[in-house]
């Protein structure tokens, strides 16, 4: 047994009082969880402390809170670890972020998390008559979506999301990971519509700021940001969806410029992005021209500061071995299937050089990121 102090953020809308922090001392075995500490407070000191919890085993996803500023499941966080990372001795426990607080540690999941989940049509949309028995798909085609299926809807990623912090309308990591669960499912018949919808929404897949916050906090290894990147990959690579948010243009411009020069020709990145990847279109399409004009003040600032010279803006040297870079691009981009090493399946354990020649290593080779097989869904029996 050891003594710990919990500094808990209290708030009761019915009291009319502002939120405040209250310290509680608890005695717990160091192996016990922060949730055990919170429940001890509720049982022994203040029965009015509000916390939502159920399984206590990181399965139900109910007890999401912030511990020392990090979004976690309280049941999945050891009290001694939390005390070790505490700043001033006390373990700070607060409700999750990006969602309104109902009382103490309970946030309104309906108002944010579940509303966003609903937004992505979180159910399968197959076409045609349902099969007589179950839908049958090749096992390998489901590997890609198993990671997003591991989500327990705890909301930790929503709480930590840095895009949502400045744009509450962002569809967000949990819902977009859920969207990928159906986009990646070969039985779904509306893959393209789903992708188009999420690519064209200004708060959709291109509103993710790529900050890894959701990956860092997810207690189930769902890596929501990686699922968002998969959505982008399918939208641009498989369906050529030229969205109004410049998502397609930005990716195409970046990849094309590195293929051409080996390093990034920054001065061309912005105009090409506005022109769906094309420099010519950036100067002829009204939508692109409008965006270019809007970015002129920033360009002028860059020139005035001496960061950028007109010469540098116009001329970008190719790498000495640029033909090698281009060869690599050609060899990989000309393949029918994209190869993806699925770390969720492979794991992070190193396979040493001695183990690479056996069948086991061969089997753990990356999964081909299959093109969606529409029309074949559901009836491969």
């Amino acid at each position, binding site marked *: 047994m050891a003594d710990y102090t919990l500094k808990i953020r209290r708030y009761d809308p019915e009291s009319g009082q502002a939120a405040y922090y209250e310290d509680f001392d608890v005695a717990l075995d160091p192996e016990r969880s922060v949730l055990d500490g919170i429940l001890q407070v509720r049982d022994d000191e203040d029965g009015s402390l509000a916390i939502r919890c159920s399984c206590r085993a990181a399965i139900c996803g109910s007890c999401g809170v912030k511990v020392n500023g990090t979004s976690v499941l309280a049941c999945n966080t050891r009290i001694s670890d939390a005390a070790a990372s505490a700043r001033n001795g006390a373990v700070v426990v607060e409700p999750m972020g990006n969602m309104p607080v109902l009382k103490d540690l309970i946030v309104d999941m309906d108002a944010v998390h579940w509303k966003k989940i609903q937004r992505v049509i979180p159910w399968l949309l197959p076409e045609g008559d349902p099969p007589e028995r179950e839908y049958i798909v090749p096992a390998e085609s489901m590997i890609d979506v198993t990671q997003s299926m591991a989500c327990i809807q705890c909301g930790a990623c929503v709480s930590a999301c840095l*895009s949502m912090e400045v744009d509450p309308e962002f569809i967000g990591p949990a819902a977009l990971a859920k969207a990928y669960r159906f986009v990646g499912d070969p039985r779904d018949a509306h893959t393209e519509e789903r992708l188009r919808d999420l690519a064209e929404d200004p708060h959709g897949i291109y509103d993710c700021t790529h900050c890894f916050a959701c990956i860092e906090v997810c207690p189930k290894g769902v890596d929501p940001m990686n699922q968002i990147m998969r959505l982008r990959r399918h939208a641009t690579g498989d369906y050529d969806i030229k969205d109004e948010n410049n998502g397609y243009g*930005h990716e195409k411009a970046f*990849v094309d410029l590195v293929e051409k020069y080996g390093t990034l020709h920054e001065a061309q990145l912005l105009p090409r992005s506005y022109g769906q990847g094309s420099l010519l279109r950036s100067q002829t399409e009204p939508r692109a021209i409008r965006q270019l004009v809007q970015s002129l003040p920033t360009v002028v600032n860059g020139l005035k500061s001496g960061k950028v010279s007109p010469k540098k803006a116009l001329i970008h040297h190719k*790498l000495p071995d640029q033909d090698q870079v281009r060869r690599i691009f050609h060899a990989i981009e000309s393949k029918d299937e994209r190869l993806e090493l699925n770390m969720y399946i*492979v794991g992070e354990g190193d396979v040493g*050089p001695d183990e690479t020649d056996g069948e086991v290593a061969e089997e753990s080779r990356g999964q081909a990121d299959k093109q969606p097989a529409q029309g074949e869904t559901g009836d491969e029996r």
Partner: protein
Amino acid sequence: MKVAYWPGCVSRGFTPELHGSMAKVAPKLDLELVELDRANCCGAGVIAEHNQELVDTLNARTFAMAQGVDGAMGMMNICSTCQGAQSECQERLDADGSYREHINEHLDPEGLQYEHDGAWWNKNFLWLLVEDIGLDKLRSRVERPLHGLRVAPFYGCYVVRPTRRLGYDLYPERDRYLEAVIGAIGAEPVDYAGKHKCCGFPVITMAKETSLRQAGRHLADAIDADADCLVTPCPLCHLNLDLQQPDAAKYVERDLDIPVLHFPQMIGLALGLDPKELGMDKHVVKTADVQRKVAELAAA
């Protein structure tokens, strides 16, 4: 100490003052940089979003070139984004021998191979400075302690998350190195909400409002915490926090006007280098106040 040096695209593009200041600072710390001038872009997360095999091959190529530099302890970068993008590829290459072999086949025609020996590393200058050069040595080289300068650290997402990929098991303090270095050169680290958050740069082209609200908010928080300037080891963060700062001010509806230093620039000031040599005139938000403070220190 000798390292293979990958400066990245942006340090030689829109933030040339970063590349220049690193070149000035390195000899002052007995650091020999062998620049990888045939290496390619790291992909900055965008090529990874496009095709994983492609980005893994491109970075394996860079790693292989770095491993071929005779006598180098490892590879150094000066960009948080390069660090994160390359660490992501290295994680996959190291995780699976047959995958690594497959990627290496793409490098065969060029006579290159990425070897996984477990000891080879790729480190941002910030990590290298603390872990390999050491703060004691840095302190011993300081010619102009930056007493009284209040510096707000801004790390860049790619060197703080995901911790499982970025060596935090071995080096759990990596998200506190900037404060340690700021302290070691006599300046005062400023605590504020944004230091580990996102500058917004990755979505500046796709979601400008989301992007610049982030940049603006962090800059405002640093100002409210009474900082004289920010410092960042990431040139992409620098672009959003400095080049875009006038625009960011509109999105947060307040005046900003706080200079943002590149990490090697700050080190250079403490090592006695002239602000002009460090390219401090090549900023959108003028660094005059910081320069004046430093000049007063030199006179004192």
